[in-house]
């Protein structure tokens, strides 16, 4: 064997060995999701023993696929591939499948995809601060600004900020009667267990300077947990109950007078931007907006 052949053989062996060292290993995980942390892209799973990798336990796993992370929810039974590097220093989940109690893969029933601009908003019954049931379609002919809040939220940069700025938007636009007649604000709670009509009314009054007349242009509502999840999915909102609080992302949705999505905002927005976009939509309404009606007592 000459030197060249020996060198080639050594190189091939090295490549094979190196390749083996970095090859990922895959194991099947079966368990239940207990928590989801979108900030760290992790879910905490209480899982069965994973032969060859880990005993049965509860621990967090990273889910790199954003779509899968969005879809999976606390409480879901899942099956997934645990991918590890050879030294098991790094591990994460891939191919997360939601299953039923017998391990069969299921599609989430009734899930609505994140709506794009121009798509029509879904219709679910909502109950307002006065106990009246209404639908988003009742606001056809008006530009509607929707936010999601929960009244117990203690984070000043989330719900209190959202509601404070919605209060300013309503107050500012109330000074422009021709636009005010064509706009509607709506804050939907993602805590229907706690945020009853009475709780929402008290919460709303605090942001309306105790004047219930303001409810005519800013309603506070809740819906049942299933419809809430579908509505949140439609608007790309993430939330999950942590017992004494609710972790959530921030989404503001502008619905055009024809009932389609006009615009989304996340955490970066100014009150002026909201007002301008709302007025722009309101001004696009043809002169008569007789079809538009709020549900609050006028």
């Amino acid at each position: 064997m000459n030197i060249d052949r020996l060198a080639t053989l050594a190189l091939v062996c090295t490549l094979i060995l190196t390749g083996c060292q970095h090859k990922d290993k895959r194991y099947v995980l079966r368990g239940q999701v207990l928590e989801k942390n979108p900030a760290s892209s992790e879910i905490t799973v209480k899982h069965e023993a994973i032969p060859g990798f880990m005993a049965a336990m509860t621990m967090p796993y990273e889910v790199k696929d954003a779509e899968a992370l969005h879809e999976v929810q606390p409480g879901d039974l899942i099956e997934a591939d645990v991918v590890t590097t050879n030294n098991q220093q790094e591990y994460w989940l891939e191919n997360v499948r939601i299953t039923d109690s017998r391990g069969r893969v299921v599609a989430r029933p009734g899930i609505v995809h994140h709506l794009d601009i121009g798509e029509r908003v879904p219709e679910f019954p909502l109950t307002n601060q006065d106990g009246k049931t209404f639908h988003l379609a009742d606001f056809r002919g008006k530009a509607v600004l929707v936010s999601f809040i929960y009244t117990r939220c203690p984070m000043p940069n989330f719900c209190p900020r959202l509601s404070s700025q919605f209060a300013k938007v309503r107050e500012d636009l109330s000074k422009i009667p021709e636009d005010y007649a064509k706009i509607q604000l709506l804050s939907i709670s993602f805590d229907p267990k706690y945020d009853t009509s009475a709780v929402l009314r008290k919460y709303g009054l605090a942001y309306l300077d105790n004047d219930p007349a303001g409810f005519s242009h800013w309603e506070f509502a809740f819906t049942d947990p299933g419809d809430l999840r579908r509505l949140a999915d439609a608007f790309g909102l993430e939330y999950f109950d942590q017992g004494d609080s609710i972790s959530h992302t921030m989404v503001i949705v502008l619905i055009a007078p024809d009932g389609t999505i006009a615009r989304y905002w996340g955490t970066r927005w100014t009150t002026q931007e909201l007002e301008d976009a709302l007025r722009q939509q309101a001004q696009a309404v043809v002169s008569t907006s007789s079809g538009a009606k709020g549900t609050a007592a006028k």
Partner: protein
Amino acid sequence: MMSLVQKLAAGPLLLVTLFLLVGCSSRAENSAESEQRGAILFAMNCSPCHEAINSQLKVQPPSLRRLFASKSLPSGAPATDEQVRRTIIEGKGIMPAFDQHLTRDDINSIVKYLHTLS
């Protein structure tokens, strides 16, 4: 010289005194612990609004320093422990209710800490 009766009486008296001292010291320790816990709970739950200027809020939450120095709270209600406890539990204005976040012990610790906040 101590009589036998005096000696017999001195034993239990010493014991009672020791119990009282230990009891007092334990109570003082519990009180300090509770106050310390109150400081942590205050930092986690109250400071984000009451110790920071946040122009994004409809109303700037009042400072809670020297809360009990005047006869009334910023809301005008009497400055009593019970009133402060009720405000924490039920919320006030844009302040959310903390009844689901904090236990009664947590709230008592916060009130205790508020008494020391200058």
